Structures are given as structure tokens and as C-alpha cells.
């Protein structure tokens, strides 16, 4: 839940080193940042999130902007951490998607019916998308970023982001159709 009108005051206080402000910012963003990192295949999402927030604290004096910009900035840092971690594991983020990704969103998946679909199916379908598509959809949905903010984070044009989310959703729908048909 965004801080809204309280954001400017919180940011100002955070720059002054106020505990309460950092607590408020962290409470708001820790869940989405960790969820984003987990959904994108991070093996240590909590560690990466912690590194992200410490970097935010170190660099906050360079930041100036509103809450949307701040949120976007935090995810820029998180995304870079993610790419660094992939690199460290020998994965190149610009290659085509890996067929299997055993780090699944949320880690422990409870398989239970959600209407006709089950969560496991959804996750399987998501894992079949390309890296770009998953980046964009996770940033749009989990991080709740706008198209423009998402484009900033992934370093792509707005048109490319729109295309990625559209293709991702089409592919997702196709995968889900297949799974229902072949069940």
C-alpha cells in the first residue's frame, strides 16, 4: 500500500536518517521486491532484496522524485541485482528462456483449484514465457509499475514493453488452453 501524501515527508526523513521513515518505505516495498525477485528465478530472493534495500539506503541522497519514481528506482536496483545474480550463476539474461526453472514463484506451491485452473498450471504456463515476457509481467503485476516505469527498469522502449506483455499474455493463454485440452 503506497504511502501517498505521506511519501514526501517519509523520503525527506529517510534522507535525514530517520528510522520510522525507513520502516515505512521498507514495509511498503519489501513484499513486492522480494516477490519480484522470487518470481524471476532468484534462488535467494531475501538476500537479493536485502542487498537492494541497502543500496537504496546508500544512494538515497542522490534520489529526487515522487513515489512512483522512487518505486521505479528501487526496482531498477533490484533488477540489476537480479541480472548480476544470474550472471554469477552462469546464466546470461539475454539468452532465450531456459526450459526449466526450479525456483518457482513463492517457493512452496499449494496446488488447489482456482476455478478450473490450478495454481501449478498457472506457474507452469508462466515459466514457459520468455525472460523478457516474465520480466515485464512480473514488474507490471507484482511490482505494480506502469508501462513507462517498467520500460525504465528493463531498459527497453515503451513499445517493446507493450509488445512483451501482449505476447506474454497470448502465449500464456495458449499454454493454458493446451493444458486444459490435454488434461
Amino acid at each position, binding site marked *: 500500500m503506497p504511502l501517498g501524501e505521506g511519501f514526501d515527508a517519509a523520503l525527506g526523513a529517510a534522507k535525514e536518517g530517520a528510522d520510522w521513515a525507513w520502516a515505512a518505505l521498507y514495509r511498503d516495498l519489501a513484499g513486492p521486491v522480494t516477490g519480484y525477485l522470487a518470481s524471476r528465478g532468484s534462488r535467494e530472493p531475501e538476500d537479493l532484496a536485502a542487498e537492494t*534495500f541497502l543500496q537504496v539506503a546508500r544512494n538515497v541522497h542522490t*534520489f529526487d522524485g515522487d513515489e512512483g519514481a522512487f518505486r521505479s528506482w528501487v526496482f531498477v536496483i533490484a533488477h540489476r541485482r537480479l541480472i548480476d545474480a544470474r550472471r554469477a550463476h552462469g546464466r546470461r539474461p539475454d539468452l532465450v528462456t531456459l526450459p526449466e526453472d526450479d525456483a518457482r514463484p513463492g517457493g512452496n506451491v499449494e496446488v488447489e483449484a482456482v476455478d478450473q485452473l490450478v495454481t501449478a498450471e498457472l506457474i507452469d504456463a508462466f515459466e514457459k514465457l520468455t525472460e523478457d515476457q516474465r520480466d515485464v509481467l512480473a514488474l507490471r503485476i507484482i*511490482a505494480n509499475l506502469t508501462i513507462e516505469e517498467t520500460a*525504465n527498469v528493463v531498459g*527497453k522502449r515503451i513499445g517493446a514493453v507493450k509488445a512483451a506483455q*501482449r505476447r506474454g*499474455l497470448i502465449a500464456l*493463454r*495458449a499454454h493454458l488452453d493446451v493444458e486444459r485440452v490435454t488434461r
Partner: protein
Amino acid sequence: MSPLSDYEDEMFRATMADREIEQLLSGVPAEDGVLNDLAPFVDMLRSQGMRAPSDAAVDSFAAEAAAIVLAGRSTRVAGSASRSRSRRSLLRPQLAAVLATIVLLTGMTGVAVAADPAAPGDTLYGLDRALEEIGIGAGKAGERLEEAHTLVADGQAQLALEHVTEAFDEAEKEGDEVADLQDARVAISDAAAMIVDANEDSDNAAIMQGNVALLLEYLSNNLGKDVGVDGREFGQGVAELARNISKSDDTDEPVNDTSVPPEDTESDDPGPPEVIPGNPGGSGNGNGNGNSGGNGNGNSGGNGSGNSGGNGNGNGNGGNSGGNGPPDGSPSETAPGRGNQP
């Protein structure tokens, strides 16, 4: 990939308006949306970010963050009068000075090289925006640049430079107009070679990192962009920045940021982009020789850094830096091997 027939697939694309996507992603699907069966997916994905941190985690982080901020503030306050100022915070005035100088020297419009000084966040945030704007993110050159700035963020300036040279390769393969880059390539190779040994000195590494970030910003703003920057000017600009990276090799003097306000570049003695000066503590490398002819203003010792006299780069002026001559392309023989693998 699609089990839908081509026809259905095409219809699906056509009817899937961006507006409906926005509604779906915001959690309020359109009444009759063809995407409604994806709503459970959106809900599932959204739930991944809903886990609230524990109170203990919040308190722990808040205390640590506050301590970091307070420590950083005191360092910066103290450093404003001496050398310990945060390197990162130097980049703003540095960047402005570089950009202003480039405009002066090349006659490029401000728009062409304008970083976004109002952009939130650190210097590299501007790079992100630049990458987005020039739209090379989709190509291999863009990927190399993107990796390069990640490496800079990580403090690995040399690897970043190697990625930059790869970006050049890719840009050429992709047919981008990147003409007259020989001089720039050589300068970048030199810079990469010269900072190999600088990494153990954290101060030097920070300066390198800042200078490499400036180079990347310039590249991102201009590579593949048709904004009236002709290839030669572009190459000269790149070479200039790359040489300044070399110059920051072996820096061991305090950096006084007040000496390089942007206004300085408007003096009647336009120096090269004001990058953090280096004091060559006997590095004695010869790479600078013959490389400084990128444009006439070159790397002459009198650029105000006050501690660059007598370094390898300064010597290069004897060669070919007179007037505003074009790069002569001669320095290739001094180029060290280009590392291509990270």
C-alpha cells in the same frame, strides 16, 4: 508455439487492445474481456508480492538503513571540505561539465547529448533512460551496453569497457551508422588496458567507474541515433572520454569537486571534458602517445586538473593535437590487445 489456429491467433491479437490488458493487469478485468480467463493468473502473480515483512525484519532494516544514511551524511559533509566526498556524488557536476564541453567542442545541440539531470536516482538511471530512448535495447549492441552498465554498477570498469567494444562490433554488424570509430576503439582499448591494475585501489576504482559511466552515457545517447552527430564527431567524443578514463589511472590525489563546476567549461580555454583528473604516479605507460589527436583540444596538460602534467597522455600532444584537426587514426599501433571476454 500457439495451439490456436493462425486465424484465431490473429484475431486474438487484434482484439486484445492495450486498454483491456491494462484492465486485466490492474486486477479489474473488462466485463466481456477475452482475457478474463487470465484473471486467475494475474491474481496468482500479484499474490507473490503481498507477503508482508516481519516486524523484526522491518525494525532491523530501518535501523541499518538509518545508520548508513547518517554515516554517509557525515562523510559527505566532512568531505565537502576535503577529499573524502563520495565519488558518486561527484558525477553530477562532472557529467554536466562533460556534456557542456562536448557541446562547445563539437557544436552538437544540447538535445543530442543532454543527459537528464532531473532524472531520479543515480547517474546510471540516466543511462537507463538513454538506452530506452535510442531504442537499441532490442539489438545485440544494446545488450552489450546494458551489460556494461551493470558491470559499472558493480564496480567492474574494465569489464564494462570490454563490453563497450563488443557493442561497437555488434552495432557495426547490425548496420548502424557508427563511422570513424577506429580512434574511439583504440582509445577505449587503451583505457581498458590501463585500468587493469587499478582495481585494488578503491579510490581509483571509484573514479574509473565514474568515468566509465560517463562514457557509457555518451555512447548511449549517441550510438545509433540519428541526431546530426556525424561519425567523426561521435568517434572523437568517445575517444576523448576514453582517454580521460586512462588519465584517471593511478590517481592518488584528492579530488576537489569544487574545481570543476560546469561553468568552467565556458571559459575561453575549452579543455576536454572535465573528467576526474588523474595523477600518474609514474605509470609511464606509452599508450597515450599518438592517441590524443582526437580533436585539437586533446588532452593537453593544461586542462586545469593541476596534476596531470608529465603523464603519458600529456606527452601525446606533441604528436598530432594541433588545431582542430581530425583524428589521424594513427594510434592503432599502440593499441593493446582488446579483451573480449568478460
